[in-house]
């Protein structure tokens, strides 16, 4: 791979030198020809995604010289509009599609910036013409180049504002989502390529490329005039539609996590039901606990952040999550118990962070978890097992959150859950509780409190 | 003229994400 890459880079640098020479002499068409040759290296099939990325970065760097020079030379040109209209056509004479489209994007971006150019048409054209590249890796990098180069060009004016000839934020959303849909399609298609014995290798490569797809969502989130209504009515449904329909776990898990990461807490709070409904439709192989956990963690941080308005009172957050978590767990027959508990842990996290003064939510979760374990006939759980690790985390959570064991005592179901652990597990929890009391200097003034604590640490006492 | 295209047919989601036949 290193050898292939070196050979390609050598050719790139040679042609780049010629390209720059032609640009210095304002021989633009000749410069385009040299650019097309250096871009031809991106037609390669010999490089793995990681090495293709290195080649891509180098080539994009060289190509930026072309864009910069073209932009700079505009100022001295009598009729830049006519010139770039011609350039936009001339670069399409290139016989191979990869160099042609990279050049089209490079020239198109400069053309876009000229006063009077058909901006809306250019943006739309660039997105549509990229359909010609159906090869997953080459297509992903090409469209990534597109979304990177057009970052500053996307119209970000409110709907109804006609001041931008490129359109308004609705047009920008349409462009980005179209690009996103095509990229996700190519990314998922990678999964089906190649022999089945190379499945793991393919999946690893796919994970390396996920950021290329995610960049589209980042770009959407950066639109300043993206309103909640647009997010709820257009952006989220389109993204979730792709995530659910692709029926591919790596893509689904990444897209859901990406949505959680890039969009604002207010958007998430307003669209919880839609998002969680989609979670229930995801592939069984998706680690749904990661998705739900990520969302809950995010909202929990939001709820407790300094200066945050907190969770609006009209949003019964716990009830929503609890209901959907139940649906998700119910719809996945083969869900491992540790994943069930991980989801419950996330709910406890939500309850303790968002509703610190009301332990009834946490209590509900502990109660239902104990029931689930009973139904699954799980008892004597070892603390270092998969289930055990999750249980330990869950049990410790309210204790760490409150740092006041007296408050934790109101979670009556906690002791039932502790009893599902084996001897060692119960001892560890007992020690944890006692250490927490000592570290926090919690004073036990009531007999009931003492009895409560003794119940929690009874294994140690016995 | 340099941006002329014909209208494309929409691809259904099933078609888009189906494994190659």
């Amino acid at each position, binding site marked *: 791979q290193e050898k292939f890459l070196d050979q390609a880079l050598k050719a790139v640098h040679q042609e780049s030198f010629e390209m720059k020479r032609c640009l210095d002499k304002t021989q633009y068409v000749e410069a385009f020809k040299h650019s097309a040759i250096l871009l031809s290296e991106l*037609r390669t099939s010999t490089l793995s995604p990681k090495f293709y990325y290195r080649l891509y970065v180098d080539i994009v760097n060289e190509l930026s010289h072309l864009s910069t020079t073209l932009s700079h030379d505009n100022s001295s040109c009598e009729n830049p509009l006519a010139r770039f209209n011609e350039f936009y056509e001339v670069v399409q004479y290139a016989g*191979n*599609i990869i160099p042609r489209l990279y050049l089209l994007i490079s020239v198109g971006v400069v053309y876009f910036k000229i006063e009077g150019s058909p901006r809306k048409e250019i943006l739309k054209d660039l997105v549509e013409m990229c359909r*010609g*590249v159906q090869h997953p890796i080459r*297509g992903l990098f090409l469209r990534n180049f597109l979304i990177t180069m057009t970052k500053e060009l996307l119209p970000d004016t409110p709907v109804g504002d006609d001041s931008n000839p490129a359109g308004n934020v609705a047009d920008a959303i349409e462009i980005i989502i179209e690009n996103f849909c095509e990229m996700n399609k190519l990314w998922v298609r990678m999964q089906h390529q190649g022999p089945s014995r190379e499945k793991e290798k393919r999946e690893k490569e796919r994970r390396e490329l996920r950021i290329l797809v995610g960049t589209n969502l980042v770009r959407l989130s950066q639109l300043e005039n993206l309103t909640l209504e647009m997010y709820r009515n257009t952006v989220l449904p389109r993204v979730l539609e792709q995530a659910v329909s692709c029926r591919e776990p790596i893509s689904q898990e990444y897209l859901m996590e990406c949505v959680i990461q890039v969009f604002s807490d207010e958007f998430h709070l307003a669209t919880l039901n839609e998002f969680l409904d989609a979670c229930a439709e995801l592939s069984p192989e998706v680690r749904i606990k990661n998705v739900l956990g990520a969302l809950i963690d995010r909202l929990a941080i939001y709820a407790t952040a300094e200066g945050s308005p907190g969770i609006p009172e009209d949003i019964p957050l716990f009830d929503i999550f609890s209901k959907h978590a139940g649906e998700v767990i119910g719809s996945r027959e083969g869900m491992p118990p540790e994943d069930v508990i991980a989801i419950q842990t996330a709910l406890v996290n939500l309850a303790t962070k968002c509703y610190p003064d009301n332990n009834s939510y946490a209590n509900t979760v502990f109660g239902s978890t104990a029931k689930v374990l009973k139904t699954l006939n799980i008892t004597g759980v070892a603390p270092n097992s998969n289930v055990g690790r999750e249980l330990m985390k869950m049990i410790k959570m309210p204790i760490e959150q409150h740092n006041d064991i007296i408050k934790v005592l109101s979670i009556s179901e906690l002791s039932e859950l502790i009893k599902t652990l084996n001897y060692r597990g119960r001892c560890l929890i007992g020690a944890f509780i006692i250490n927490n009391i000592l570290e926090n200097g919690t004073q036990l003034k009531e007999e009931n409190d003492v009895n409560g604590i003794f119940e929690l640490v009874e294994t140690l006492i016995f | 003229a340099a941006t002329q295209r014909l209208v494309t047919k929409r*691809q259904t989601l099933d078609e888009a994400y189906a494994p*190659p*036949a």
Partner: protein
Amino acid sequence: WGQQIDIYIKFADEDTRKKVQIRNEEGRYEENLLYFDGESVSGEIAIKLRKRNQKYEHQGIRVDFIGQIEVYYDRGNTYDFVSLSKDLARPGELYEDTTFPFFFSNVTKSYESYVGCNVKLRYFIRVTVSRRITDVVKERDVVVHSLSCYPDTDVNLKMEVGIEDCLHIEFEYNRSRYHLKDIIVGKIYFLLVRIKIKYMEIAIIRRESVGSGPSVYNENENIAKYEIMDGAPVKGETIPIRLFLAGYELGPTMRDIGKRFSVRYFLNLVLVDEEDRRYFKQQEITLYRKAELPNRR
């Protein structure tokens, strides 16, 4: 021995008339004056004596405007579809350099100049100085372009084609007639894909047919190859086509020229699979040279 002459053919508006490049039989480019159908062809013939103070005897001087079809494998049998002649001088002697004007009025030039693989069509001025033994002949070519004007309304070319259970596509090109600087706008829609496609391209093929009836000889030449898709699509995919004809050396479609040859153009849509098998669909298109509308004030 004896006096010798050099003949120079100069056209009347040589400095102002447009010149165009045309590829000759050897593949080199030549630049010649451009004429259109109906234009008069005029100029002067200059005959310069190489030796001073020596007369030059001749049996007559003639100028011809000829439009000719020449088939390479039958060079002796040229067909002059245009042959206009003017006598410049009766038999006599030349004592000094002499210039003879010529004028062919409103000459019909029905066909476009063409240099192909097996046939060429050319227009030229030929000056013949007749002598007793060997005539002195000088020729100078001009290029003729044929202009056409078609209405803007034109049907698109749309067709579904396929191999059963294997590959079905619907292709569409926006027109069936294109001028030489036109843009082919089209799309390919995949209805069924059960082969591993590597890429897809459109080739422009020129087919030169020489002869008639059972003795037609066809020669295909790939003028262009234009990649329109990289990688393997799935069902429901639409691939856009935008091919600028101005980027290629094309001429207009020529049908049954002088009942001797035709030049036709085809778009060849080619899909290549992972094992380099080629699946193709050829479609004839008509190319024409567009008459430019005159500038109106």
